């Protein structure tokens, strides 16, 4: 149950990679910083899921993956929910909905974007910097791999859980990832594993003859179509919404 690219031919899949990336990032920023009420956020999330469903995105894995951040959600709900005058469940729900929104958008983005589409987006972001000698393509690759590593780290926690059971840890006993305190000592092995994996990945790419600096042609040419035009209005609307407080002055 890992979030990974699932090919498809729906509307969202066919978006231009630049549009996909921009919309996704705008939406992530939107979910992180808006100050809307829980009901509105929930409606937006529901609308987003509906659009995804209609255009045939494989949502199951993304939604199931939320379980993996369950613990984080509980902690955030507790921290956000408590204020000077006791526990306010509304605040807790809002905080959780924001994170779930970010998670869903990121998950769907990764589900509908192939590796080459991701690289294409990041390269486009850094291309202006190439003018001043910045290694845009190398950096884009680093970013793509980093993004791809996010589910790997989640998968890593699952793997360690299995390894513990395989060594006779009891499901209901101590030592298993049942509490936040049990998760903490795992962070270090998880991160070391991630770094080790990154090294292995680099070797694997070199072993297959990958050279970052080689001139490359694109296998796929991406077009900018009519749907992109419509989709592009989403980030515009979001930026308008976010900048509104400053404009009204």
């Amino acid at each position: 149950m890992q979030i990974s690219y699932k090919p498809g031919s729906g509307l969202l899949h066919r978006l231009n990679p630049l549009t996909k990336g921009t919309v996704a990032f705008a939406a992530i920023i939107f979910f992180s910083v808006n100050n809307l009420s829980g009901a509105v956020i929930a409606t937006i999330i529901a609308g987003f899921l509906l659009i995804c469903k209609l255009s045939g995105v494989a949502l199951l894995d993304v939604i199931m993956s939320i379980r993996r951040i369950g613990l984080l959600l509980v902690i955030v709900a507790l921290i956000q929910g408590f204020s000077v005058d006791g526990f306010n469940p509304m605040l807790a729900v809002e905080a959780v909905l924001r994170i779930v929104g970010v998670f869903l958008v990121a998950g769907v983005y990764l589900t509908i974007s192939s590796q080459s589409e991701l690289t294409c987006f990041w390269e486009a972001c850094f291309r202006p910097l190439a003018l001043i000698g910045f290694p845009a393509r190398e950096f884009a690759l680093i970013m793509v791999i980093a993004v791809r590593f996010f589910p790997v780290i989640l998968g890593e926690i699952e793997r360690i859980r299995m390894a513990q059971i395989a060594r006779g840890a009891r499901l209901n006993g101590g030592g298993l990832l049942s509490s936040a305190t049990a998760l903490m000592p795992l962070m270090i092995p998880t991160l070391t594993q991630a770094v080790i994996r990154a090294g292995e990945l680099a070797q694997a790419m070199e072993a297959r003859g990958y050279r970052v600096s080689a001139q490359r042609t694109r296998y796929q040419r991406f077009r900018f179509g009519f749907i992109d035009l419509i989709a592009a209005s989403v980030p515009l609307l979001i930026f308008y919404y976010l900048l509104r407080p400053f404009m009204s002055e």
Partner: protein
Amino acid sequence: MASHVTELKLNNIKVKYGSATLLDNLCGNFTRGQLNLIVGRAGSGKSTLLRTIAGFHKEFSGSIMADDKAFDPSGNISLVFQNPEALFFNGSVGEEVGYALKMRGVLPDEIECTSKKWLQQWGLDPECCWHRHPLELSGGEKRRLALAACTVFLPPVVLLDEPLAGLDVKGQHALADMLKAMATDHIVIVVTHEPEALMTDSSSLLYLRSGCGLWFTPETFLYQALSESDFFPLPHWYSSAVTPFREKPALPRLEAGAVHKFIQEWRRADADKL
């Protein structure tokens, strides 16, 4: 830590991945006091069966009973994965081996003492690798470490997925001896592509083939493999040496010494007849 399970019974196990059925209608027993071997072609579902017994793979129907009670794998099994690296999550070899003991509340001094003894038994020098990172070890050393870490707490059911892979010949012999010793008071189930290295007269053999499981004793297995050419690929030396004798009432064990003795005896018998 004595083990109490003497028999693991599979009742009508049916294992699926999504809509694809991998194993169907699998019944049979794994018992204590012998090595239980599982063989089969790549992709026949051997690892999946182990993962099902271990409780990792939940998409199955049927039941697994331990001495007439439903088997609860949690805390009662150890599973050495086909890929030992996937088992490691500690920063050093010492912690890796000690983990299972620590979970069981063993005192630190005792943990260190037992772990070192155990590493030594599995052919790793505890003094030189105690503080090393598990992933720095060589392939064969990783395999040994995985075996040590999974068996140190002596669970009632030990599941091993291709434990011979990546070991040198001496290591394979040592492993076979340790497994046989362990099988006297634990249920040991081993998936392997080289039954010859582990098969003894008292082994039981489960052959997974096109979704079904067939149970054999070593003898019936060898007979069938010799008479049916596409049944199971026995080592070439064995089939060429023993095929001329396959009508005889008994076959030698799948072991060079036994085959040699067997052939000599028949030669002598033939010479006496003349």
